[in-house]
């Protein structure tokens, strides 16, 4: 048994090493190929980086919700993507109404604020509702059960919104102030993207301070360390969980508006893919880790944006952008295999079984 075990062990090691080497080869050869062909000038690379950052900051905001919930409840809140969608979609009506009055042209920032508030309120409401109905009764259940309930909640929300608002999509109105490009330090960047990035950073910082400095933030961290001990210390665990869900949902709702600002289209299914990507970001950065979620999000955005062009184009693969999701998922799998604690590592030593 001993000898066969060793053989088997080194076979797997070998395999994993081969895996690593292939990935490195793809990256190096592809990058070399792309850069040496000189097809893309610096202006284009900068564009790509900016795209990646703006996309990534939206992922980061949504990822915050995932990571916080996982940190406390050790469950993947599959319905979080739908919380994002609910905020974005409902706020559309506010935005459209304001636009009808010409409000957005006259008071753009106030208008944006109102829309954000509507989105965050709706998202928080939906998030709390889901927690109350679908998750709270299942808190003691084995791992699979809340997962399925979360998947059920996700479907339910998607189709409820479809039933409410119709199966087609709606397009956010344009904020006249935010149209077109602006030049910052010699780099051209779209105004909407700038707003998205700035807004996201602002919210992330606010959230971080909230978790680190306030009393309830400390309570959240305590509960994620050890729920029972925290309860013994007199912390109202239920309330903390509610706050966690609420804050995460609010962040997602805000992300929804920022997303809609950049992409304009909202529809009932818009939360599904960003939800998965955001969760990937959370894992990439280190689940349970708030700065990690932010880093993971930005990183994922960049990889998605630059990856296909940087790596695959150099290898001569046709239509590489079709495979951009392959990048995201491969990154995920790689991180999970080789560094499951994520880029910034898990703050908590979690038992995974």
């Amino acid at each position: 048994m001993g000898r066969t075990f060793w053989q088997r062990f080194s076979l797997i090691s070998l395999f994993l090493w081969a895996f690593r080497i292939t990935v490195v080869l793809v990256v190096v050869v592809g990058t070399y190929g792309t850069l040496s062909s000189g097809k893309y000038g610096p202006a284009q690379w900068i564009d790509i980086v900016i795209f990646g950052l703006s996309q990534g900051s939206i992922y980061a905001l949504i990822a915050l919700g995932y990571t916080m919930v996982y940190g406390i409840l050790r469950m993947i809140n599959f319905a979080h993507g739908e919380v994002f969608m609910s905020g974005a979609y409902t706020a559309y009506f506010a935005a459209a109404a304001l636009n009808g009055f010409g409000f957005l042209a006259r008071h753009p920032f106030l208008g944006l604020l109102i829309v954000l508030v509507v989105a965050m309120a709706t998202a928080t409401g939906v998030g709390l509702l889901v927690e109350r109905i679908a998750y709270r009764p299942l808190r003691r259940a084995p791992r699979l059960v809340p997962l399925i309930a979360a998947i059920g909640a996700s479907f339910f929300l998607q189709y409820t919104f479809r039933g409410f608002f119709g199966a087609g999509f709606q397009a956010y109105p344009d904020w006249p102030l935010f149209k077109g490009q602006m030049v910052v330090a010699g780099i051209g960047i779209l105004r909407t993207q700038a707003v998205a990035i700035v807004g996201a950073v602002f919210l992330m910082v606010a959230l971080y301070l909230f978790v680190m400095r306030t009393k309830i933030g400390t309570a959240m961290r305590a509960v994620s360390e050890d729920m029972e001990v925290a309860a013994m210390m007199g912390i109202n665990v239920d309330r903390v969980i509610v706050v966690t869900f609420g804050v995460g949902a609010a962040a997602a709702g805000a992300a929804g508006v920022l997303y809609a600002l950049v992409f304009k289209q909202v529809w009932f299914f818009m939360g599904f893919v960003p939800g998965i990507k955001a969760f990937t970001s959370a894992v990439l950065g280190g689940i349970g880790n708030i700065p990690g979620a932010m880093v993971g999000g930005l990183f994922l955005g960049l990889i998605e944006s630059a990856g296909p062009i940087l790596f695959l184009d150099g290898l001569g693969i046709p239509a590489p952008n079709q495979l951009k999701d392959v990048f995201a998922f491969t990154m995920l799998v790689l991180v999970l295999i080789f560094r499951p604690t994520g880029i910034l590592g898990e703050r908590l030593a979690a038992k995974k079984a």
Partner: protein
Amino acid sequence: MKRLQILITLAVSVLLAVGGYFVPAAPAATMGPVTDSIGVVKVSKGQPITIAYWLVITGPNGNLGIDSRNGIEIAIDDQKAVLGFPIKLIGEDTGCNAEGGTTAATKLAANNQLVAAVGSTCSSEARPGAPILWKAGIATVSPANTAPDLTDPKRSADYNGYLRTAHNDLVQGAVGATFVRTVLKLSKVATIHDGSPYAEGLANAFAASFKKQGGTITAAEAVNVGDTDMRPVLTKIAATKPELIYFPIFVAEGGFIARQSKEVSGLANVKLMGADGLFDPNFLKAAGDAATGMYQSSPDTRTEVLGSIYTVFLQKYEKKYGTKPLSIFHAHAYDATNLILQAIQKVGKTDAAGNLYIGRKALRDALFATKGWKGVTGTLTCNPYGDCADPHLAVYQITAGDPSKWDPGVTNPKPIYPVVK
């Protein structure tokens, strides 16, 4: 134990006998006054003739199917009855994918009162669905499938019951390519498809024709249905310096591309062109002002081309549904339905008791024998492989990005090619 054995044997034999009773009889080859090698439909006196639709009526592309269904309903309203029998329409939603097509077709095929069908919307549905219907002897005329392989001479005999009044995408791609080459006089085009058989086929048809006319395709890219960030793809394309981007895809992704192409450096002056998948007021909603000036190929609906017969039809449409047409295949559906109804008229035979009998093969043959038939979409003649269309394809230009200014075929989008007197 012996008693049990007897019991078992008895039970099994009873079941086998009873089961045998339920084996469905082969559809009668002779019924009433009609003899048919495939089967006969009997419509009792006082019962309606049943035809069906299998179209995409829900979901983001639902307008395509609803629009076609409207055309069918108008045709039924106009005809009112065939040989004294009223017409009943049933139908299934197909969902624009192969499984949906299979399930819809199977469900319809199980109905032995069904005479013929109009559908499908997406070519991916017709591939499995048409053979299923034909196996039950039900012929189907599609108002919207455009994939070339469905009427290819090399297609299998399973498709012998399939015809279409919609154009073949080979034609649409060629018209688009000719327009870009000879009218816009451009020689460098980049194409984008979305992974669907329709878009890929059309992009390829365009590219082939364009290259044959001396142009170059600078980039052949693809995105995924559901993608929202097109900027990396557009940046990549920008590096190849095309003069026009051809993206024959559907509304959601098309909207993103149109909008974002204006935001990518290097593409500010590049022209945009789409195809009939984008001929939808929702596209204006999605793309906004970015769509202004964009070109689209789509069936030609001008009175100069189709004649006043189309205008009359359009008036009926607006009167019944209160809106302008939602998509492009309403007239094709109208023609398809009329083809079927007329074929029924030709081959249906009544007996002394007043029941109607329709031979399935006879119906199919009558459909394929259509020659010089004047429909709303033109003069239809069916070739032996099911292409009946009189393809009039035009290139339109969008003049305003406001969806409330949707006036298809007149001002927005405006037809600009081919030029008619």
